[in-house]
Protein backbone atom coordinates (compact mmCIF):
# COMPACT_ATOMS: atom_id res chain seq x y z
CA UNK A 1 0.00 0.00 0.00
CA UNK A 2 1.16 3.51 -0.80
CA UNK A 3 0.11 6.74 0.81
CA UNK A 4 -0.20 9.76 -1.44
CA UNK A 5 1.18 12.66 0.57
CA UNK A 6 0.82 16.40 0.24
CA UNK A 7 3.99 18.25 1.25
CA UNK A 8 3.27 21.91 1.95
CA UNK A 9 5.48 23.95 -0.38
CA UNK A 10 6.22 26.51 2.31
CA UNK A 11 6.16 24.75 5.67
CA UNK A 12 7.28 21.33 4.34
CA UNK A 13 4.75 19.68 6.63
CA UNK A 14 3.11 16.64 5.09
CA UNK A 15 -0.19 14.83 5.34
CA UNK A 16 -1.74 11.74 3.77
CA UNK A 17 -4.47 12.62 1.27
CA UNK A 18 -5.14 9.28 -0.40
CA UNK A 19 -4.13 5.63 -0.34
CA UNK A 20 -3.60 3.29 -3.29
CA UNK A 21 -2.45 -0.29 -3.67
CA UNK A 22 0.39 -0.03 -6.20
CA UNK A 23 3.14 2.31 -7.33
CA UNK A 24 1.63 2.62 -10.80
CA UNK A 25 -1.68 3.69 -9.25
CA UNK A 26 0.16 6.20 -7.08
CA UNK A 27 1.92 7.77 -10.06
CA UNK A 28 -1.31 7.90 -12.09
CA UNK A 29 -3.27 9.36 -9.17
CA UNK A 30 -0.72 12.14 -8.75
CA UNK A 31 -0.74 12.94 -12.48
CA UNK A 32 -4.56 13.11 -12.44
CA UNK A 33 -4.93 15.21 -9.30
CA UNK A 34 -1.87 17.45 -8.98
CA UNK A 35 -3.75 20.51 -10.29
CA UNK A 36 -6.16 20.18 -7.35
CA UNK A 37 -3.33 20.72 -4.85
CA UNK A 38 -1.51 23.88 -5.99
CA UNK A 39 0.02 24.45 -2.56
CA UNK A 40 1.42 20.94 -2.35
CA UNK A 41 4.26 18.90 -3.67
CA UNK A 42 2.65 15.51 -4.21
CA UNK A 43 4.59 12.33 -3.64
CA UNK A 44 3.87 8.77 -2.58
CA UNK A 45 5.41 6.68 0.16
CA UNK A 46 4.92 3.11 1.35
CA UNK A 47 2.75 2.72 4.42
CA UNK A 48 4.83 2.58 7.58
CA UNK A 49 7.80 4.43 6.09
CA UNK A 50 8.95 7.97 6.82
CA UNK A 51 8.98 10.18 3.70
CA UNK A 52 12.10 12.09 2.74
CA UNK A 53 11.29 15.80 2.82
CA UNK A 54 14.16 18.04 1.77
Amino acid at each position, binding site marked *: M*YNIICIDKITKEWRVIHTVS*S*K*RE*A*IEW*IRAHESEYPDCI*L*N*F*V*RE*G*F*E*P*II*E
Partner: protein
Amino acid sequence: MAERWDVFRRIGERHKADVLIVIDRDIVDYFTDIAKATDDREMGGFLLGDYVYYSGSPKPWLIAHFHDYVQVPNVSEKPETTFAFPEESLREVADMISAGRYSAFTLLHTHPSDSFFSVEDLHVHYRFRLLISDVVPEEARRFQHFIPHFTITGGEVGYAVSYMDYLHWVCYYYDESAYLVVSSKSVDSNPELRRHLFWMARVKFPDDFEFHLGVTDYHYTVAKISDLEEIFIRGGETEDVERIIEEMKERMRKEIERRLRQL
Protein backbone atom coordinates in the same frame (compact mmCIF):
# COMPACT_ATOMS: atom_id res chain seq x y z
CA MET B 1 46.28 5.65 -9.12
CA ALA B 2 47.88 7.86 -6.52
CA GLU B 3 46.49 10.96 -8.30
CA ARG B 4 42.94 9.82 -7.64
CA TRP B 5 43.60 9.63 -3.92
CA ASP B 6 45.33 13.00 -3.97
CA VAL B 7 42.24 14.65 -5.50
CA PHE B 8 39.98 12.95 -2.97
CA ARG B 9 42.28 13.85 -0.09
CA ARG B 10 42.24 17.53 -1.01
CA ILE B 11 38.46 17.55 -1.37
CA GLY B 12 38.10 15.85 2.00
CA GLU B 13 40.43 18.36 3.63
CA ARG B 14 38.42 21.24 2.16
CA HIS B 15 35.31 19.87 3.83
CA LYS B 16 37.12 19.10 7.08
CA ALA B 17 35.79 15.56 6.81
CA ASP B 18 36.88 12.76 9.15
CA VAL B 19 35.61 10.38 6.52
CA LEU B 20 35.17 10.92 2.78
CA ILE B 21 33.01 8.39 0.95
CA VAL B 22 33.34 8.55 -2.83
CA ILE B 23 30.72 6.90 -5.04
CA ASP B 24 30.99 6.64 -8.79
CA ARG B 25 27.91 7.98 -10.50
CA ASP B 26 27.47 4.79 -12.56
CA ILE B 27 26.53 2.97 -9.37
CA VAL B 28 23.88 5.54 -8.48
CA ASP B 29 22.48 5.47 -12.03
CA TYR B 30 22.24 1.69 -12.06
CA PHE B 31 20.36 1.39 -8.79
CA THR B 32 18.20 4.43 -9.56
CA ASP B 33 16.85 2.63 -12.63
CA ILE B 34 16.05 -0.37 -10.48
CA ALA B 35 14.42 1.69 -7.73
CA LYS B 36 12.24 3.50 -10.28
CA ALA B 37 11.16 0.26 -11.94
CA THR B 38 10.33 -1.81 -8.87
CA ASP B 39 7.11 -1.72 -6.91
CA ASP B 40 6.77 -4.48 -4.34
CA ARG B 41 10.40 -5.53 -3.82
CA GLU B 42 13.51 -3.95 -2.40
CA MET B 43 16.66 -4.85 -4.30
CA GLY B 44 20.32 -4.28 -3.68
CA GLY B 45 23.87 -5.45 -3.59
CA PHE B 46 27.38 -4.78 -2.39
CA LEU B 47 29.44 -1.75 -3.37
CA LEU B 48 33.11 -2.58 -3.83
CA GLY B 49 36.17 -0.37 -3.78
CA ASP B 50 39.27 0.64 -1.92
CA TYR B 51 40.23 2.79 1.01
CA VAL B 52 43.15 4.87 2.19
CA TYR B 53 43.68 5.64 5.85
CA TYR B 54 45.77 8.71 6.69
CA SER B 55 47.17 8.02 10.12
CA GLY B 56 49.97 10.58 9.94
CA SER B 57 47.85 13.66 9.23
CA PRO B 58 47.11 16.25 11.94
CA LYS B 59 44.13 14.04 12.69
CA PRO B 60 43.60 10.55 11.26
CA TRP B 61 40.99 10.19 8.59
CA LEU B 62 39.67 7.83 5.98
CA ILE B 63 38.77 7.90 2.30
CA ALA B 64 36.78 5.04 0.78
CA HIS B 65 36.12 4.98 -2.96
CA PHE B 66 33.39 2.68 -4.30
CA HIS B 67 33.68 2.09 -8.03
CA ASP B 68 32.19 -1.39 -8.57
CA TYR B 69 29.13 -3.28 -7.42
CA VAL B 70 27.55 -6.69 -7.43
CA GLN B 71 23.80 -7.02 -7.34
CA VAL B 72 22.58 -9.88 -5.14
CA PRO B 73 19.16 -11.48 -4.58
CA ASN B 74 16.96 -10.23 -1.78
CA VAL B 75 16.41 -13.24 0.48
CA SER B 76 14.34 -11.41 3.09
CA GLU B 77 11.12 -13.09 4.23
CA LYS B 78 9.47 -9.74 3.52
CA PRO B 79 11.26 -8.52 0.38
CA GLU B 80 8.58 -5.88 -0.19
CA THR B 81 9.70 -3.96 2.91
CA THR B 82 13.18 -5.19 3.86
CA PHE B 83 16.42 -6.24 2.18
CA ALA B 84 18.60 -9.19 3.20
CA PHE B 85 21.59 -10.54 1.29
CA PRO B 86 22.36 -14.26 0.90
CA GLU B 87 25.31 -15.53 2.89
CA GLU B 88 26.93 -17.09 -0.17
CA SER B 89 27.07 -13.68 -1.88
CA LEU B 90 28.93 -12.30 1.13
CA ARG B 91 31.40 -15.17 0.77
CA GLU B 92 31.89 -14.29 -2.91
CA VAL B 93 32.63 -10.69 -1.94
CA ALA B 94 35.05 -11.96 0.72
CA ASP B 95 36.82 -14.07 -1.92
CA MET B 96 37.29 -11.01 -4.15
CA ILE B 97 38.69 -9.08 -1.21
CA SER B 98 41.02 -11.96 -0.31
CA ALA B 99 42.22 -12.02 -3.93
CA GLY B 100 43.25 -8.37 -3.57
CA ARG B 101 40.71 -6.94 -6.00
CA TYR B 102 39.07 -4.71 -3.37
CA SER B 103 39.67 -3.60 0.19
CA ALA B 104 36.40 -1.79 1.02
CA PHE B 105 32.80 -2.82 0.65
CA THR B 106 29.38 -1.80 1.86
CA LEU B 107 25.70 -2.51 1.35
CA LEU B 108 23.21 -0.66 -0.84
CA HIS B 109 19.53 -1.37 -1.35
CA THR B 110 16.61 0.30 -3.06
CA HIS B 111 13.31 1.67 -1.83
CA PRO B 112 10.49 1.92 -4.40
CA SER B 113 9.26 5.20 -2.90
CA ASP B 114 11.06 8.23 -1.45
CA SER B 115 11.31 6.99 2.12
CA PHE B 116 14.12 7.19 4.63
CA PHE B 117 16.00 4.12 5.83
CA SER B 118 13.72 1.98 7.96
CA VAL B 119 14.57 0.90 11.47
CA GLU B 120 15.25 -2.58 10.03
CA ASP B 121 17.83 -0.99 7.69
CA LEU B 122 19.53 0.65 10.66
CA HIS B 123 19.52 -2.65 12.53
CA VAL B 124 21.29 -4.36 9.62
CA HIS B 125 23.92 -1.60 9.67
CA TYR B 126 24.17 -1.78 13.44
CA ARG B 127 24.82 -5.54 13.36
CA PHE B 128 26.78 -5.55 10.10
CA ARG B 129 30.20 -5.90 11.65
CA LEU B 130 29.00 -8.97 13.54
CA LEU B 131 27.34 -10.40 10.43
CA ILE B 132 30.56 -10.19 8.42
CA SER B 133 33.07 -11.00 11.14
CA ASP B 134 33.46 -14.71 10.32
CA VAL B 135 33.53 -14.28 6.56
CA VAL B 136 35.30 -11.10 5.47
CA PRO B 137 39.10 -10.63 5.87
CA GLU B 138 40.19 -8.37 8.71
CA GLU B 139 41.70 -5.89 6.25
CA ALA B 140 38.24 -5.02 4.87
CA ARG B 141 36.56 -5.03 8.29
CA ARG B 142 39.06 -2.73 9.97
CA PHE B 143 37.26 0.52 9.14
CA GLN B 144 33.76 -0.81 8.58
CA HIS B 145 32.37 1.33 11.41
CA PHE B 146 33.32 4.42 9.33
CA ILE B 147 31.51 3.29 6.20
CA PRO B 148 27.79 4.03 5.72
CA HIS B 149 25.18 1.89 4.06
CA PHE B 150 23.19 3.32 1.16
CA THR B 151 19.58 3.50 0.01
CA ILE B 152 18.51 4.66 -3.44
CA THR B 153 14.85 5.64 -3.66
CA GLY B 154 12.55 5.46 -6.67
CA GLY B 155 9.69 7.83 -5.88
CA GLU B 156 8.64 11.04 -7.60
CA VAL B 157 11.90 12.75 -6.67
CA GLY B 158 14.52 10.03 -6.18
CA TYR B 159 17.25 10.28 -3.56
CA ALA B 160 20.58 8.72 -2.69
CA VAL B 161 20.74 8.30 1.08
CA SER B 162 23.60 7.08 3.24
CA TYR B 163 23.49 6.36 6.97
CA MET B 164 25.74 5.27 9.81
CA ASP B 165 26.26 5.86 13.52
CA TYR B 166 29.22 8.16 13.09
CA LEU B 167 29.34 11.91 13.58
CA HIS B 168 30.65 13.54 10.46
CA TRP B 169 31.41 12.37 6.98
CA VAL B 170 31.10 13.65 3.44
CA CYS B 171 29.68 11.79 0.46
CA TYR B 172 31.19 12.71 -2.87
CA TYR B 173 29.18 11.49 -5.86
CA TYR B 174 31.09 11.98 -9.04
CA ASP B 175 31.97 11.18 -12.59
CA GLU B 176 34.26 12.98 -15.01
CA SER B 177 31.89 15.87 -15.65
CA ALA B 178 29.67 16.13 -12.58
CA TYR B 179 29.94 15.87 -8.85
CA LEU B 180 27.90 16.48 -5.77
CA VAL B 181 29.26 16.88 -2.27
CA VAL B 182 26.91 16.17 0.63
CA SER B 183 27.69 16.46 4.34
CA SER B 184 26.12 14.25 6.97
CA LYS B 185 23.59 15.43 9.53
CA SER B 186 22.09 13.91 12.64
CA VAL B 187 18.64 12.32 12.84
CA ASP B 188 18.19 14.87 15.66
CA SER B 189 17.90 17.50 12.93
CA ASN B 190 14.67 15.82 11.79
CA PRO B 191 12.35 15.46 14.82
CA GLU B 192 9.73 13.41 12.96
CA LEU B 193 12.31 10.94 11.70
CA ARG B 194 13.92 10.75 15.13
CA ARG B 195 10.58 10.05 16.81
CA HIS B 196 9.71 7.42 14.20
CA LEU B 197 13.03 5.58 14.65
CA PHE B 198 12.92 5.86 18.42
CA TRP B 199 9.55 4.10 18.66
CA MET B 200 9.95 1.65 15.80
CA ALA B 201 13.23 0.37 17.26
CA ARG B 202 11.32 -0.60 20.41
CA VAL B 203 8.43 -2.13 18.47
CA LYS B 204 10.48 -4.11 15.95
CA PHE B 205 13.41 -5.10 18.17
CA PRO B 206 11.95 -5.17 21.70
CA ASP B 207 14.84 -7.15 23.21
CA ASP B 208 17.75 -5.29 21.62
CA PHE B 209 18.27 -2.64 24.28
CA GLU B 210 21.69 -1.69 22.96
CA PHE B 211 20.07 -0.84 19.62
CA HIS B 212 17.35 1.22 21.36
CA LEU B 213 20.08 3.43 22.77
CA GLY B 214 22.05 3.61 19.53
CA VAL B 215 19.29 4.25 17.01
CA THR B 216 19.09 7.99 17.57
CA ASP B 217 22.87 8.34 17.25
CA TYR B 218 22.58 7.82 13.52
CA HIS B 219 23.60 10.41 10.96
CA TYR B 220 22.73 10.50 7.29
CA THR B 221 23.26 12.24 3.98
CA VAL B 222 20.54 12.92 1.41
CA ALA B 223 21.23 13.80 -2.23
CA LYS B 224 18.63 14.37 -4.91
CA ILE B 225 19.29 12.17 -7.93
CA SER B 226 18.17 15.05 -10.17
CA ASP B 227 20.97 17.18 -8.72
CA LEU B 228 23.42 14.69 -10.18
CA GLU B 229 21.55 14.34 -13.45
CA GLU B 230 21.43 18.09 -13.99
CA ILE B 231 25.07 18.41 -13.03
CA PHE B 232 23.99 20.57 -10.18
CA ILE B 233 26.91 21.65 -8.10
CA ARG B 234 26.42 22.96 -4.60
CA GLY B 235 27.22 26.65 -4.24
CA GLY B 236 30.86 27.59 -4.28
CA GLU B 237 32.17 24.11 -4.97
CA THR B 238 32.78 24.43 -8.69
CA GLU B 239 35.91 26.47 -9.04
CA ASP B 240 37.77 24.92 -6.13
CA VAL B 241 37.19 21.32 -7.12
CA GLU B 242 37.74 21.99 -10.81
CA ARG B 243 40.97 23.78 -9.96
CA ILE B 244 42.16 20.78 -7.93
CA ILE B 245 41.35 18.43 -10.80
CA GLU B 246 43.04 20.72 -13.34
CA GLU B 247 46.12 20.92 -11.15
CA MET B 248 46.25 17.14 -10.97
CA LYS B 249 45.87 16.83 -14.74
CA GLU B 250 48.70 19.34 -15.26
CA ARG B 251 50.95 17.42 -12.87
CA MET B 252 50.16 14.16 -14.66
CA ARG B 253 50.89 15.78 -18.05
CA LYS B 254 54.26 17.01 -16.82
CA GLU B 255 55.07 13.62 -15.33
CA ILE B 256 54.24 11.88 -18.63
CA GLU B 257 56.43 14.38 -20.52
CA ARG B 258 59.27 13.83 -18.05
CA ARG B 259 59.09 10.07 -18.47
CA LEU B 260 58.91 10.38 -22.26
CA ARG B 261 62.07 12.47 -22.22
CA GLN B 262 63.82 9.70 -20.26
CA LEU B 263 63.05 7.11 -22.97
